[in-house]
């Protein structure tokens, strides 16, 4: 173990800055990571966390500022520079080439397969055959492969950018285990997450970025959530009640969407639900219990084989999303970029859904401008990077994904995990928006991968397990333990 | 090359002169213009639609060389690209816009240029079609007699195999006027020899490598007694050597490589005949254009140059005369026309206009 003077930081960045065109991604970020600590990097969407990590891993060149490792300045021009300086990274996006095998990927980056295999074994992840094509490997395993590959370089500082966002609970614990072990060896970890619970659980210190600059470095402990949120969002941070229903009791609206015993391949095995106008119906489930397919089927994206689907009482058998959109049922999918035109401008994206409302061959489009401008104002979309939607931060992209339906009009909204990777401030805005929509008479089906979300904003909660709805819960009594039990299919007594 | 030039001269003189339409009102215009212009100031436009072809290359060079040698041409404007009939029309329109005094075209199509040639004529521009005739009545035509080309070569071949046997018929470009004319002549000759059978008829597209592989196919799969080619000749002979087969009589054009083979391989049993198809028609057309522009001499509307046939049995001396040892295989050996062209061989080879 290294005998370093306690005051000598392992990593110190000083006023690092980066701009993309006129958009300042990072204004002035200073950060110090001591040896043997797990250091959290927190911040709202667009605060510049990923950008900082990319600069530190030599993938992106900074515009200004200095980086010191063990007190000595380092130039990070290439990824190799970072590795030689002892900085290893798991990026927010998968960094494995999909059309190559795992082994070829390792060869590409010059990592020994033996070490990677060793780390996978150590994490008690069953070693996937390294001769598998990366695109055939499920995302959680890929994240762990990314981690093992980073570890194989034996970095002194391990940087993990939202690694837990795509991991199921048991693997999150595995990753925490590795992080603690790394710390025990005297190395350090820089950990980025939007889940404050995780920060409290594993992190020694936390640096908060806001608008591209560091605003605070704190030692997080129980009860600090409020402080952290305020540091991230500034004064007037919203409270976590924005989406709550004002009145009690079940909503009385008519049933607008009804599924009876839907089956689809092996994913859905007789799934039934009723969605009423004016309510937000929460869907909760562990990874891979068929919820994704359920949303795809309800939106007309993929077919179902058995069972029945009714919209406003009339049975439908959609062949494409258009059949459901015509009936007012629209989807906000998990992968927001998948639903948007990433290269196109904000306004074009908002207008795109409008095109379905005009005539087919020769009718011109009208009235698109007011609808678009109205939506931008209502959702408070940040228009700075509006020329291409892909340059918006994640939260703003999410707003666009919802907003385009707002511009076009709908009656039933299917939201699949709309707050994934979204900061708390934006989350609150989205909750509030959904509640307003429901109060205006829309029916909303809402899936959240984070179990703590559904009880906050939903009127009813259904739990899916193994391709069917197994339980319905009242949000008031749905604490995390109850939900977890139900999600594991353990409380089968409830209807 | 004396014989040949004399021969050609004879042919030209044989041409009936009655093609010239005396009442054509446009006829006088060029002369008036010429009178206004100082000598040596003519601009000649050229429209050619096939590039990367040795024959066309030499044709263009002979135009350049004659323009230079005449001392009466200030500029040759080349519209030279791979294109089709409509592209050639556009090119000619461009040349009209340039204010050229005469346009020499190698027409892509017999009839398609009629209207644009009429338009050029209206502006007092002399249009001369070379290589292939056009139907436009205003145009002068300076052509090699392609019907005779097909007929003469065909007859030589059929006689060579004593009027009976299997013949491979390796044509040129499918649909090209020259190919159609040669076909007409070839079939006319064939009529006279009922016992000759065509066992293989292919289009080489006048492409040496296509011709070579087709010839190899024919030699190795068919039992042929003679081969008529539309000018893709030396690659065919090469295939006999390559496949190590016995030679059969071959008819080709006046390509340097073929002439060389006829001379060198005569002792190995190769018999063959050269049917001339000289590219200097371009130079001839240039000379005629200058004559007309300067008002020096009248020319018939059609000048048809009948090809000569030389085989390596009776005309060895003529072949040796034609042969140009320093030049590549594909080079066409006939380079000048006495009575028309005034340039030197060097000027053609340099290929530089005024």
């Amino acid at each position, binding site marked *: 173990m290294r005998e370093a003077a306690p005051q000598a930081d392992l990593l110190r960045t000083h006023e690092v800055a980066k701009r993309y065109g*006129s958009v300042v991604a990072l204004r002035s970020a200073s950060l110090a990571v001591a040896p043997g600590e797990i250091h959290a990097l927190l911040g709202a969407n667009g605060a510049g966390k990923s950008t900082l990590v990319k600069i530190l891993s030599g993938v992106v060149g900074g515009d200004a500022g200095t980086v010191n490792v063990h007190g000595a300045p380092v130039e990070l021009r290439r990824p190799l520079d970072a590795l030689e300086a002892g900085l290893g990274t798991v990026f927010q996006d998968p960094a494995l080439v999909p059309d190559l095998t795992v082994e070829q990927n390792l060869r590409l980056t010059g990592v020994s397969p033996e070490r990677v295999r060793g780390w996978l074994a150590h994490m008690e992840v069953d070693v996937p055959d390294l001769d598998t094509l990366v695109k055939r490997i499920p995302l959680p395993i890929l994240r762990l492969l990314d981690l093992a590959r980073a570890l194989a370089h034996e970095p002194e500082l391990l940087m993990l950018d939202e690694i837990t966002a795509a991991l199921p609970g048991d693997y999150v614990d595995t990753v925490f285990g590795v992080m603690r072990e790394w710390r025990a060896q005297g190395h350090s970890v820089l950990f980025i997450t939007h889940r404050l619970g995780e920060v409290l659980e594993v992190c020694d210190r936390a640096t908060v970025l806001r608008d591209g600059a560091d605003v605070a470095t704190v030692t997080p402990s129980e009860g600090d959530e409020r402080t952290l949120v305020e540091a991230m969002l500034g004064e007037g941070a919203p409270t976590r009640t924005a989406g709550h229903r004002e009145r009690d009791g079940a909503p009385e609206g008519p049933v607008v969407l009804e599924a009876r015993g839907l089956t689809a391949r092996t994913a859905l095995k007789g799934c039934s639900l009723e969605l009423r106008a004016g309510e937000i119906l929460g869907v909760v489930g562990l990874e891979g219990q068929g919820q994704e397919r359920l949303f795809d089927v309800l939106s007309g994206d993929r077919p179902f084989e058995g069972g029945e689907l009714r919209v406003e009482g009339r049975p439908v058998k959609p062949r494409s999303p258009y059949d459901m959109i015509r009936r007012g049922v629209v989807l906000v999918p998990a992968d927001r970029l998948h639903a948007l*035109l990433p290269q196109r401008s904000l306004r074009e994206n908002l207008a795109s859904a409008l095109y379905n409302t005009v005539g*087919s061959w020769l009718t011109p489009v009208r009235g698109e401008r007011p609808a678009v401008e109205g939506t931008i104002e209502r959702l408070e979309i940040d228009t700075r990077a509006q020329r291409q939607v892909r340059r918006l931060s994640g939260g703003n992209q999410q707003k666009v994904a919802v907003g385009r339906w707002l511009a076009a009009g709908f009656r039933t909204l299917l939201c699949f995990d709309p707050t994934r990777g979204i900061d708390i401030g934006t989350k609150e805005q989205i909750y509030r928006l959904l509640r307003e929509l429901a109060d205006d008479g829309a029916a909303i089906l809402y899936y959240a991968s984070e179990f703590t979300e559904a009880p906050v904003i939903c009127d009813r909660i259904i739990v899916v397990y193994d391709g069917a709805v197994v339980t319905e819960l009242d949000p008031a009594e749905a604490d995390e333990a109850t939900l977890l039990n139900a999600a594991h299919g353990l409380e089968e007594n409830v209807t | 090359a004396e014989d040949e030039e004399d021969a050609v001269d004879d042919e030209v003189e044989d041409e009936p002169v009655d093609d010239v339409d005396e009442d054509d009102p446009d006829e006088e215009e060029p002369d008036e213009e010429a009178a206004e212009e100082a000598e040596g100031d003519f601009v000649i436009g050229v429209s050619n639609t096939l590039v990367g072809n040795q024959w066309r290359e030499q044709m263009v060079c002979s135009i350049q060389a004659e323009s230079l040698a005449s001392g009466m041409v200030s500029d040759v404007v080349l519209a030279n690209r791979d294109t089709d009939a409509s592209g050639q029309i556009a090119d000619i329109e*461009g040349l009209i816009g340039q204010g050229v005094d005469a346009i020499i075209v190698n027409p892509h199509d017999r009839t*398609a240029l009629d209207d644009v040639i009429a338009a050029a004529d209206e502006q007092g521009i002399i249009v001369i079609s070379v290589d292939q005739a056009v139907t436009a009545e205003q145009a002068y035509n300076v052509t090699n007699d392609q019907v005779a080309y097909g007929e003469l070569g065909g007859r030589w071949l059929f006689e060579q195999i004593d009027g009976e046997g299997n013949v491979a018929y390796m044509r040129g470009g499918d649909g090209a006027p020259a190919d159609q004319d040669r076909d007409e002549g070839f079939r006319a000759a064939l009529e006279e020899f009922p016992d000759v059978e065509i066992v293989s008829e292919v289009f080489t597209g006048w492409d040496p490598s296509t011709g070579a592989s087709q010839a190899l196919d024919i030699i190795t799969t068919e039992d042929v007694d003679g081969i008529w080619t539309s000018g893709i000749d030396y690659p065919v002979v090469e295939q006999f050597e390559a496949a190590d087969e016995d030679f059969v009589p071959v008819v080709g054009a006046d390509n340097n490589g073929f002439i060389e083979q006829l001379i060198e391989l005569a002792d190995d049993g190769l018999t063959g005949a050269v049917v001339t198809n000289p590219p200097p028609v371009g130079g001839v057309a240039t000379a005629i254009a200058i004559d007309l522009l300067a008002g020096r001499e009248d020319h018939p509307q059609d000048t048809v140059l009948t090809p000569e046939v030389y085989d390596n049995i009776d005309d060895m001396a003529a072949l040796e005369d034609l042969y140009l040892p320093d030049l590549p295989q594909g080079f066409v050996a006939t380079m000048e026309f006495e009575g028309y062209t005034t340039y030197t061989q060097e000027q053609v080879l340099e290929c530089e206009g005024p």
Partner: protein
Amino acid sequence: MTTATDERAGSSATTPGVRLQRWLRRHGWTIGVWLLLLAFILWYATLIPAFGEFQIASIARNSLPTVYLALAQSVVVIAGGIDLGIGALMVLANSASARLMEDQGFAMTLAIAVGVVLGAALLNALVGLLIAVSEIPDVVVTLGMLFVYSGLALLVLPSPGGGTSPGLRFLFTGSETGVGTNYWMPILMLALPTALLAWWMTRSRRGLSLYAIGSDLGAAYLSGVSIRRAKVVSYAVAGGFAGLAGIALTTLANSGDPRFINALNALLASLAAVVLGGIVLGGGVGSVVGAVAAGIILFTLNPILTAMGIDPNTTQVVRGVLIVLVMMVAGLLEWRRRRAE
């Protein structure tokens, strides 16, 4: 923070000035190509002794086939495809129409022209259908069609020939002989289809659906666009324009020419026009109006290079370098603008 808020607010209060700026920026490329065309024509005018109606008419009518083909390719490319068979379809339409129209009266040739255009649209619609249903990439199917169409052209008209009626020639070229100084007719034949197509592409739902599938297939699908229908429509429209290009060729040359090289040259011209016209290969971006100017530019290059007396063999090189140069200048401007933002 204030600036940010200001900027956010700014977007809703759009002054005419801002709108003009935005319009200029959005259509910058299209405007640029038209200016380039203007510059070329002016340049050409200085190169030759007399520039007048004859030259304008000549440029207008002779660029008709290239322009129609550029429009055809634009539609497919905007919709995210690429049609390698388009030049061959033009040649097929040219061969078929020249053969059918020979020695016919005006009314009959007009009817044949309509028939050929519709036939070409239908034929290419089937190609689009095959692509949409089988999900084989566009390049592959249309590469196959390149051979199929040119083979058919040779079967229809084994060697150059055929003709059309003087009336139809007048309709496209402004003169019954195909040569003359009437430039209104060909300019109308350039402008009218372009305007109609441009309007349809950007204003109607069906037209917009082509942009949508070109931009992002998945997103278009999730927004309720019928991908198959849009694909088929894009190929059908392209086929119709290829048919029109074929007819234009017939009226220009008063004959048909079935050779393969024509199909390839036409294909290359259409691709070059699309690229120069600012239509992004991959789809979703660009305007058919830009491709029209690019088509005319590509045509005008020939007389310009001839007039400049450039060695014909160098002409090819110049043409290629020009394409790359224009794209580089455009790229540079785009890059600087993005940097300045």
